């Protein structure tokens, strides 16, 4: 029997060491692909604009997503609301490569996430800590990303979430076998997943950084903290020179451990996204869907 979960986890493995960029038009998608993005996230409004506009934020128009699928040859992802399995069915029907069940959009269900195992198409989900990550994996997510705080240009929350996940993973690996049952209980996740983390020192799926990444240095920071790749949302197309910044962030992810190359990449990028600090915002998207 064909194992879709394995194939979907494996697509995420192919994205590693890469940058997934938010795009709102075919033109932006082409710029992202040419800059070296390993995938694009098609959405009507980037998170900074969703935040500014307020109101209920929903899945994008399938026609707009199809336009982006036609414009590029790299994988195309799109977001559905937390718990909105009908939006997910629609995205599967247009053969999206990855669905992001995302806290950036307004949640459709305040109790249940989507039963992602009912789908052939893969899902990526956000997480703030190990418990959230393993609960999403248990529901069928085949890729995890930090939630960060989308649309802010402030990396502090992505850092907090990645550090939290990594430190909890290290703690689990140090437990002895009989302590794992209690850990599973505390994390509110299946024992088998805790055992996997204990034995392998990592999540069973690829783990990217997302939320607030705006510069090559931000991307390098997240990679050094253990991210396997980076999502960049508002940080690129809200900056002075999107093309140049996109290329620089791509190369920063490849050479995240080489300060000399990072210094060159950080030169002359023009204006970065202005951003807002976390204590200046009203709505914490990261608190959606636990």
């Amino acid at each position, binding site marked *: 029997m*064909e*194992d879709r979960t*394995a*194939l*979907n986890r*494996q*697509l995420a*493995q*192919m*994205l*590693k*060491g*890469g940058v997934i960029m938010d795009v709102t038009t075919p033109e932006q998608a082409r710029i992202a*692909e*040419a*800059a*070296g*993005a*390993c*995938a694009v996230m098609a959405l009507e409004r980037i998170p900074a604009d969703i935040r500014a506009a307020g109101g209920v934020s929903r899945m994008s128009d399938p026609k707009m997503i199809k336009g982006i*699928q036609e414009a590029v*040859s*790299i*994988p*195309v992802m799109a977001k559905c609301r937390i718990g909105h399995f009908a939006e997910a069915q629609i995205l*599967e029907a247009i*053969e*999206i*490569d*990855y669905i992001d069940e995302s806290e950036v959009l307004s949640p459709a269900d305040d109790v249940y996430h989507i039963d992602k195992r009912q789908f*052939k*198409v*893969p899902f990526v989900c956000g997480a703030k800590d190990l418990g959230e990550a393993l609960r999403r994996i248990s529901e069928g997510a085949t890729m995890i990303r930090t939630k960060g705080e989308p649309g802010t240009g402030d990396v502090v929350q992505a850092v907090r979430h990645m550090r939290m996940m990594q430190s909890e993973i290290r703690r689990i690996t140090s437990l002895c076998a009989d302590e794992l049952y209690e850990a599973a209980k505390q994390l509110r996740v299946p024992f088998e997943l805790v055992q996997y983390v204990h034995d392998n020192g990592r999540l069973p799926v690829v783990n990217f950084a997302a939320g607030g990444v705006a510069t090559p240095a931000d991307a390098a920071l997240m990679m050094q903290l253990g991210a396997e790749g980076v999502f960049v949302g508002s940080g690129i197309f809200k900056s002075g020179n999107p093309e140049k910044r996109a*290329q620089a962030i*791509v*190369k920063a*992810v*490849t*050479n995240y451990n*080489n300060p000399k*190359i990072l210094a060159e990449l950080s030169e002359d990028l023009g204006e970065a996204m202005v951003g807002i600090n976390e204590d200046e915002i009203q709505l914490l998207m990261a608190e959606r869907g636990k």
Partner: protein
Amino acid sequence: MKIAILALQGAFAEHQIVLENLGAETFLIRNREDWNLEKHALVIPGGESTAMTRIMRDLNLWEPIRSAIAEGLPVFGTCAGLIMLDDKHLGTMDITAQRNAYGRQLGSFYTEDSFEGIGMVPMTFIRAPFIERVGKEVEVLSTVAGRVVAARQKKQLVCAFHPELTPSDTRIHEYFLTLVQG
């Protein structure tokens, strides 16, 4: 024997694990300085060929890699790595690849089929290409449903699928190491 693994983007760590388990010494190439180290072979992993192309060009790796392969450096390309060697990219192999030949992610699949000189092998195809044209110098090593999915031209070996994703079966990597030594 030192095997260089191109680590610009994609699933390079998976190749590294398989090759190290087979006793090969490996190192990752992320920039021009890494490339200057001594090596006996190169692996180009799966990932996105558009991303690899961009990074290779910007980091001044394109021409050195192309000429080293053209001058005989053994190379193993899987999926995007296969595409990188075709006549529309580095052009060191006389093949034409068709990208995303099986469609989007819903077209990704697993199968088992025969590989010349090895027998039945596990094959994982992820948004995979196939080879739509092979030149005279190229030996076809495997076909799946009539499509060429593995081939060799002297010391250049390519697979449209990912042997590094089924690490319990290392025969194709062993085949490559034999090719490097031979």
